């Protein structure tokens, strides 16, 4: 009975309530109430699990070439048919997911780290540090992303996948840096930052312990968007023949078969699976990103 509660108990009760109401808890609750985001999250988890368990799930080997069954439609021992050299489409789809997702995730992590570092330094210090870093960022933004990725990837084509990832990171960090910088600038005006500095916190500590946790939501939203952008960039580049080496299965390399009009016209089973896989994955990531943004927005009442 509430009337029987002592003051002490009431305080405990309130404390519990307050604990439950942390921003992260509220956001999680809001996110899980967003049906579209939850469905997308479940779908994405299934895709990721399938991708990384590819050797266990896939019915064939990705390098197995069945000369007797080249370019054969779905069914007949091959769930989604075979491509023009006789490889199983379903197997390629699983292994391709692994390549495309790995590149997307590594690029995203790299870009978030680089962008956050540059953005934090520029936003925290302001003044000439900010001016120099932001002029540099603006300058990097002048280069059309895809054109430079293509040119650089073609120069370093022999260097393999890591060179490709490096190219994506070097050309892709600008947007993230700008977003982090502007958030950092408004956040550092708060009094808790001055308090942290006045008790002797070093800039590194103030940024890492006090400022970054408070702009984490922005960084997370930015990261989901970047993941989608990087997966698209990898597939587009591989589709054009400048991305992942052609022997490695990736969604973009699978789409590369559709460069030929006869494949588009007559062998839909070769290109529709990777096309649907790419689009649905990007859609799911975008919905999750939208959901997270919404969940952390105190104005949205969902």
């Amino acid at each position, binding site marked *: 009975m509430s009337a029987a509660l002592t003051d002490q108990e009431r305080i405990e009760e309130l404390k519990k309530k307050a604990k439950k109401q942390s921003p992260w808890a509220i956001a999680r609750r809001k996110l899980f109430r967003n049906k579209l985001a939850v469905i997308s999250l479940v779908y994405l988890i299934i895709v990721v699990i399938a991708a990384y368990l590819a050797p266990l799930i896939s019915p064939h080997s990705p390098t197995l070439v069945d000369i007797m069954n080249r370019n054969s439609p779905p069914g007949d021992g091959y769930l989604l048919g075979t491509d023009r050299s006789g490889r199983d489409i379903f197997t390629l789809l699983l292994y391709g997911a692994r390549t495309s997702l790995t590149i997307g995730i590594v690029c995203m992590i790299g870009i978030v780290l680089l962008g956050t570092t540059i953005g934090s330094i520029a936003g925290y210090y302001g003044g000439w540090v900010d001016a120099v870093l932001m002029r540099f960022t603006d*300058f990097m*933004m*002048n*280069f*059309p*992303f*895809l*054109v*430079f990725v*293509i*040119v*650089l990837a*073609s*120069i370093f084509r022999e260097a393999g996948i890591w060179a490709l990832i490096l190219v994506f990171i070097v050309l892709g960090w600008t947007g993230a840096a700008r977003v982090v910088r502007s958030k950092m600038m408004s956040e550092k005006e708060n009094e808790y930052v001055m308090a942290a500095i006045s008790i002797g916190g070093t800039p590194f500590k103030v940024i890492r312990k006090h400022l970054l946790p408070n702009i984490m939501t922005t960084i997370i939203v930015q990261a989901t968007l970047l993941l*989608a952008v990087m997966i*698209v960039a990898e*597939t*587009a580049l591989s*589709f*054009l*023949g*400048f991305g992942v080496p052609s022997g490695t299965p990736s969604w973009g390399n699978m*789409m590369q078969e*559709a*460069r030929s*009009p006869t494949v*588009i*016209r007559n062998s*839909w089973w070769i*290109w529709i699976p990777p*096309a649907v896989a*790419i*689009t*649905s994955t*990007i*859609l799911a990531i*975008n*919905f999750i990103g939208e959901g997270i943004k919404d969940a952390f927005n105190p104005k949205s009442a969902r």
Partner: protein
Amino acid sequence: MLLYTLRRILIMIPILIMISIVVFSLALAMPGDALSGQIDPANTDPQYVEQMREQLGLNDPVHVQYARWATGVLQWDFGRSFNHRMPVTELIGERLPNTILLSVMSLMITYVLAFFMGRYAGRHPYTPGDYGIQGLNYLMLAIPSFVAAIFAIFIFSFQFGWFPSTGSVGSGLEAGTWDWWVSKIHHTALPALVLGGLTTASYTQFLRNDIIENAQKDYVRTARAKGTPEGTIYNKHILRNSVIPIITLFGFDIASIIGGAVIIETVFTYRGIGELLISSITNRDYSVVTAITLMLSVATLVGNLIADLIYGVVDPRIRVE
């Protein structure tokens, strides 16, 4: 305004020089002779290559080479294309009109689609029609351009046979005639639809949100209180305010339009700058690659400048810094 314009253009000059240095460094990193395009990439005889390098001055110090190349570029001389056996400028001049036609048509499609969809969704928010448009937007944002292009070819070229799937103009037509133009537009329509359609999403969303936001403002309440018909409020009062920001969007978008054009042109083997870039890289025709890379970077810079200037005309507040 004049002062603002001049200042913006002056700021551009050092940026242009820095861009040219970056492109020049890339050209040096490219295999073969990416500056003048006169060494046969297929001939790997070291003596021949060394002799040509000496003759073309590719063994000179870097700054001498840069000065020579930059002087050439300023005089509109980008060297020669080894594969096409003609000056790069001439080659690009042949292809540029196609890319411009494609970009203009796709921009028109973007604006027309975004205008009608954004206006409808903004006036009737949270209705089934609005949700339909939003759903379409999500799909267009998610689908990569080359995937959309392949689906478009499959459906419109092969299933319905409405549009040609490759090329930029029919064969056997004389340039400049009526039939030639009709064929050209017919060939450009599908790639332009894909390129323009995909960029529609962000414009539509922008217009919709702006209309919804504006509808809450005091001047709209005043108009309503005066008894202005709802149609007039939306079409005259709100639309005039909301359309302005999306006019300037394309300038900031120009880098992604260029990237999109490279992919779309390649999928449709549409004979434009983007397709030329990809085929030149494949054929190791690096002098063309250097020239196109520089041109597209400058185009992005100019696009941003134009967007800023239009924005300055539209919104006088940002001119005062």
